[in-house]
C-alpha cells in the first residue's frame, strides 16, 4: 500500500527532524555551556532568591527563567545540567547496549547452556524493582557520576538482552542463516555478518530509548538525594528542589521538567524514527 507507506514515511521523517533538532540543541548547550550560560550555575545570590521568569511581574531581565531559593540562575543550571545529562545518557546508554546486546545475541543464536544461564540471570534480574535496585547500588558504591553510570549498566542490560535475544532467535530461523551455514560460514561470522545487521536497528532503537531512561534514572537518584552532589546542576536535582518549593516558585520545577520531558521524548522518537529509516523494506 504505497499510500499508507508514504504517510508513515512522512510522519517518520517529521519525527526524526523534530527530535533530532531538540537533541542537537541540548548537545550544543552541553558543549558550549561555559560560554553561553549567562551566570555561574553555582553562584548563589541570596538577595535575588526566587525571582520569577522574564514574562512575570517582578522579574529581573538578567535572570531569564528566574532563580531558585538560593538565588541561582535557573537557565544557567539547565544549560550546565545538559552536560551531566548527556554524559550519563551517552556513556550509560552505550555501555548498557554493548553488554546487553552481546549477551542477547549469544543466548539467542547459540541457545543451549549459554541461553539457559543467560536467561536465568535475566529472570533473576527482572525480579528486582529497578529503581530500588539502583538506589541500593548507589547507596552501597557511593554517589558520583561513575557510580550512576555503573548502576545503570548493571541494572538495565536485561532490557537489551531480552529483546535482542528474541530477535536473534527469530533471525536464526530464517533461511539466510541456513544458507550461510551451507556456504561454510562459521558461527561467529554468521552472528556478526548475517544476523548482526538485521538486529542492529532494534539495538539502535533500544539504545536511544535507554539514553532517555539514563537521564531519568539520574533524575530519580537526584530526587532521593543520591546522585552527584546536592550542589551540582543536574536536572533531577533541580526538579527535586522545585518539588519542595512548588507553591512559592513554580518555575524552579517547570523549566527543568519541560526540558527533561522533551529530551526523554526526543530520545525515544529518534530511536523509532531511525529504526524506520534503517529498514530496507520501508526505505
Amino acid at each position, binding site marked *: 500500500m504505497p499510500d499508507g507507506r508514504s504517510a508513515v514515511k512522512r510522519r517518520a521523517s517529521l519525527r526524526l527532524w523534530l527530535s533530532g533538532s531538540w537533541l542537537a540543541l541540548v548537545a550544543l548547550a552541553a558543549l558550549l555551556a561555559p560560554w553561553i550560560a549567562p551566570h555561574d550555575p553555582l553562584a548563589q545570590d541570596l538577595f535575588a532568591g526566587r525571582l520569577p521568569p522574564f514574562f512575570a511581574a517582578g522579574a529581573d531581565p538578567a535572570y531569564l527563567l528566574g532563580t531558585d531559593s538560593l538565588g541561582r540562575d535557573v537557565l544557567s543550571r539547565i544549560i550546565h545540567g545538559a552536560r551531566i545529562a548527556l554524559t550519563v545518557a551517552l556513556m550509560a546508554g552505550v555501555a548498557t547496549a554493548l553488554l546487553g546486546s552481546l549477551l542477547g545475541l549469544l543466548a539467542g543464536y547459540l541457545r543451549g547452556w549459554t541461553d539457559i544461564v543467560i536467561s536465568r540471570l535475566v529472570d533473576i534480574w527482572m*525480579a*528486582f*524493582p529497578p*529503581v530500588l535496585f539502583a*538506589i541500593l547500588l548507589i*547507596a552501597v*558504591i557511593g554517589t558520583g557520576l561513575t557510580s550512576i553510570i555503573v548502576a545503570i549498566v548493571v541494572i538495565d542490560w536485561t532490557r537489551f538482552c531480552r529483546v535482542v535475544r528474541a530477535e536473534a532467535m527469530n533471525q536464526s530461523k530464517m533461511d539466510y542463516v541456513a544458507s550461510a551455514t551451507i556456504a561454510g560460514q562459521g558461527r561467529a561470522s554468521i552472528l556478526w555478518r548475517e544476523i548482526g545487521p538485521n538486529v542492529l536497528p532494534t539495538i539502535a532503537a533500544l539504545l536511544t530509548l535507554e539514553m532517555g531512561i539514563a537521564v531519568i534514572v539520574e533524575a530519580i537518584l537526584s530526587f*532521593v538525594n543520591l546522585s552527584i552532589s546536592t550542589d551540582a546542576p543536574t536536572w533531577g536535582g533541580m526538579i527535586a528542589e522545585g518539588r519542595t518549593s512548588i507553591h512559592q516558585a513554580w518555575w524552579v520545577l517547570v523549566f527543568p521538567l519541560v526540558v527533561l520531558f522533551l529530551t526523554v521524548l526526543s530520545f*525515544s522518537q529518534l530511536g523509532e524514527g531511525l529504526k524506520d529509516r534503517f529498514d530496507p523494506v520501508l526505505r
Partner: protein
Amino acid sequence: MILLRALLTRLATTVVTLFGAAVIVFFVIRVVPGNPIAMMLPPGATDEDIARLSAHYGLDRSIPEQFAIWFAGVLHGDFGASISLRQPVMPLVLGRLPATLELAIFALVLAVMIGGAAALTGTRLRNTRTEAAIDIANGVGLSVPDFLWALVLILLFGILVPVFHISGRISPSADLPFVTQFYVFESILRLRFDLWWDLLQHMFMPALALAIPLAAIIGQLLKQSLKETMHLDYVVLARTKGYAENKVIVSEALPNAVLPTLTLIGVQFTFLIGGTVIIERLFSYEGLGNMAIDAVINRDLPLIQGIVLVFALLFTVVNLVVDMTYALLNPRLRHA
C-alpha cells in the same frame, strides 16, 4: 495433565529465580566495597563501635556463614529485625504491602481501560486522523516514564488546577475503622463509600502516572494485533456474513488479538509494580516502596533484604499467573 506438569516445571524455575535474587541482594550489600556497619553508624564512630555493632548483627562472621544463617531464617519466615524501626521485618513488610498492591492493581485497571479504549477506537477508525492522533498519543505515552508523568500530573492537577490529592493514602482527618491494610477492599465491605471515595481520590494521581506508559503500550500493541487480525480470513468471512463492523471487531477479532497483549501485560505489570517505589515517594503514599527508600537511606540492611525479596516474590507470582491465564484462554493449549 500437561498443564499440571508445566506448572510444576515453572514453579521449580521460580524457586531458582527467587533463590538467585536472595543471593544477589545479600551479596551486593556485603561484597561490594563499603562497610555496611560503617554506613549504619553516624560519621565519627570509632573502630570499636563498628566492631561491637558488627558482632551484634553477626557481621563479623564469614559471608557464606552469614548467608546460611539469614537464609535459614528466611525459610522459617524470619527475615530478621529492622535496625531503624526496631521491629521484626516480616510484619512491617506485610503491613505496607496491601497499600502498594491496591495502588498497582488500580493502576493496572486504569491502564487496561485507557489502553483498551484507545486500541478499539483506533481499530474502528483505522486510516483516519483519529487513528493518527491515537498513534501519536501512544508514542508519547510510552516514551515518557511514570516518574515524569507523576511530576506533570502533580503540576497540572495538584497545583495548577488542584482537583486531586497529591499526597498520602487517605485524608489524615478520616478516622479509620479498618482492621486490615486493604483499605479500598475493606471500605467496600463495610459499605463506607465515603472512605472509599476518599481513597480513590488519593490514589488517582499516582495510579494514573503509573498507568499512562502501560496504557500506551497496551493501546499500541493491542491495536496492532487487532489490525492484523482484521485481515485474517475468519474476520473477513464474518464481515461477508453481514455483521456490523463494531460487532466484528469486538466478538471476532478481539478474543484472539488479546493474547499477545496479555503476555506483554505480565512483564509490564511487574515494571509497573517496580515503578511504585519512586511514585509512592513522590506522592508520599505509605506503601512498600516508600518504606524501601527510607530503609536504604537509613542503611537498614535486614529491612532492605526483606522488601526486595517480597518484591521478587510478587513479580514471579505475577508472571506465573499471567502464564497460566494465557494457557487457559488459548484453546490450543487448553485442549492440548
